[in-house]
């Protein structure tokens, strides 16, 4: 599976599923969005296996994305989930900091975990590079590419014009012969980075701002299934309208139906939380996600939104919002790096 396929499906409600396999990570990155540490919490394997085991060929996410923390700290679970997902036709990707690369060899358990995966993505940025040399990560990726595995680099910089990004891109492209797509992102004031990086200004649009993150459910570190991959929603307390269930109890068809059909989630994907708060509540607060997290505080809002989403004329607006969902390249900001998403893609 090429990275662009993952992004092409990214806005499809229930089209994918994130599994946060562990909050633990042996690295100590100062920008970590999940504030991972070597001894952080880690949920039992059973709820993840149970949920993926409930996939059916006719009712499954297209893509399962294994994240953390460092998901490859649980190599057996990664392998079992990938094999289980594949039985239903779902494809599996992992995002790793490649902690093992620093030792110059890939342990057998991790090699076995990577084998059934459809995509392997490695994080490279100046924080990871303090503990895992870039050249070591590229060596691992080169070996995987040579074995026919689809891989990518998740490259993070400080700003669109950060010279680190251009230098790293040059080296990655050269070292991997342009066979490896690169997803370029910028550090945001989320998690540990929020302690030292100023919050990004979020200019308020006066009109609808459809949410792009309330699409793929996330199984959080405690097994809660959250409708949105905003870190604030995952860290909890998760508001009622973003809580889709519990991986230990609910099966995928139920989770997927809630993700697709919930009136509040459809409204969030159509209008965005600030528009909803302006129309059906006592107004938006400063932040986009902050406003969303507050929508459950007034029970009346859910009823009003439910009424709004039942109206035939709202269906017209919802159809337009579905048509306006981002394409793969639209996810890449700064957009000057969007073409790197297509590296290594076989001609159609």
């Amino acid at each position: 599976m090429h990275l662009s396929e993952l992004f092409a499906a990214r806005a499809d409600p229930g089209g994918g599923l994130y599994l946060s396999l562990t909050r633990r990570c042996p690295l100590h990155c100062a920008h970590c969005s999940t504030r991972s540490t070597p001894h952080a919490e880690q949920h039992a394997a059973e709820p993840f296996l149970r949920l993926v085991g409930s996939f059916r060929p006719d009712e499954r996410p297209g893509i399962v994305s294994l994240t953390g923390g460092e998901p490859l700290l649980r190599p057996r679970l990664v392998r079992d989930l990938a094999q289980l997902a594949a039985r239903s036709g779902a494809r599996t990707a992992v995002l790793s900091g490649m902690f093992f690369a620093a030792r110059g060899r890939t342990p057998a358990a991790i090699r076995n975990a990577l084998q059934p995966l459809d995509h392997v993505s490695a994080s490279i940025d100046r924080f990871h590079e303090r503990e895992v040399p870039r050249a070591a990560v590229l060596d691992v990726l080169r070996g995987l590419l040579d074995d026919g595995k689809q891989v990518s680099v998740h490259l993070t910089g400080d700003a669109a014009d950060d010279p680190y990004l251009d230098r790293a891109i040059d080296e990655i492209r050269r070292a991997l012969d342009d066979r490896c797509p690169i997803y370029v992102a910028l550090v945001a004031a989320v998690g540990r980075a929020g302690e030292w990086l100023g919050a990004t200004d979020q200019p308020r649009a006066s009109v609808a701002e459809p949410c792009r993150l309330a699409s793929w459910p996330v199984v959080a570190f405690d097994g809660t299934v959250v409708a949105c991959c905003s870190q604030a929603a995952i860290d909890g307390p998760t508001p009622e309208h973003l809580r889709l269930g519990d991986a230990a109890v609910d099966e995928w068809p139920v989770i997927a139906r809630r993700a697709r059909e919930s009136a509040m989630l459809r409204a969030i994907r159509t209008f965005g939380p600030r528009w909803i708060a302006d129309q059906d509540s006592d107004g938006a607060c400063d932040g986009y996600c902050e406003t969303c997290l507050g929508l459950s505080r007034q029970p009346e809002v859910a009823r009003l939104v439910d009424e709004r989403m039942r109206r035939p004329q709202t269906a017209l607006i919802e159809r337009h919002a579905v048509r306006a969902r981002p394409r793969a390249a639209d996810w890449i900001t700064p957009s000057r790096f969007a073409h790197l998403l297509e590296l290594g893609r076989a001609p159609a």
Partner: protein
Amino acid sequence: MPDGGHTYDPVADYLQQTGLSIDSLDEGEIELLKSLSRHEVDALVSIDNKGKQMQPIKRVGAAGY
């Protein structure tokens, strides 16, 4: 639909804001448009101009995507 003491025409407002002609809408869409409030027409127009609205908002997912 009355709006602020004036008669609000959602279809005309939508066409004016988008630059589209009436021919670009089918009958069903026109009927639905007629019952939208001014706020809803503004929302619809902004959705149609999606890139301008979504780009400045910085949001980061748990998985970095």
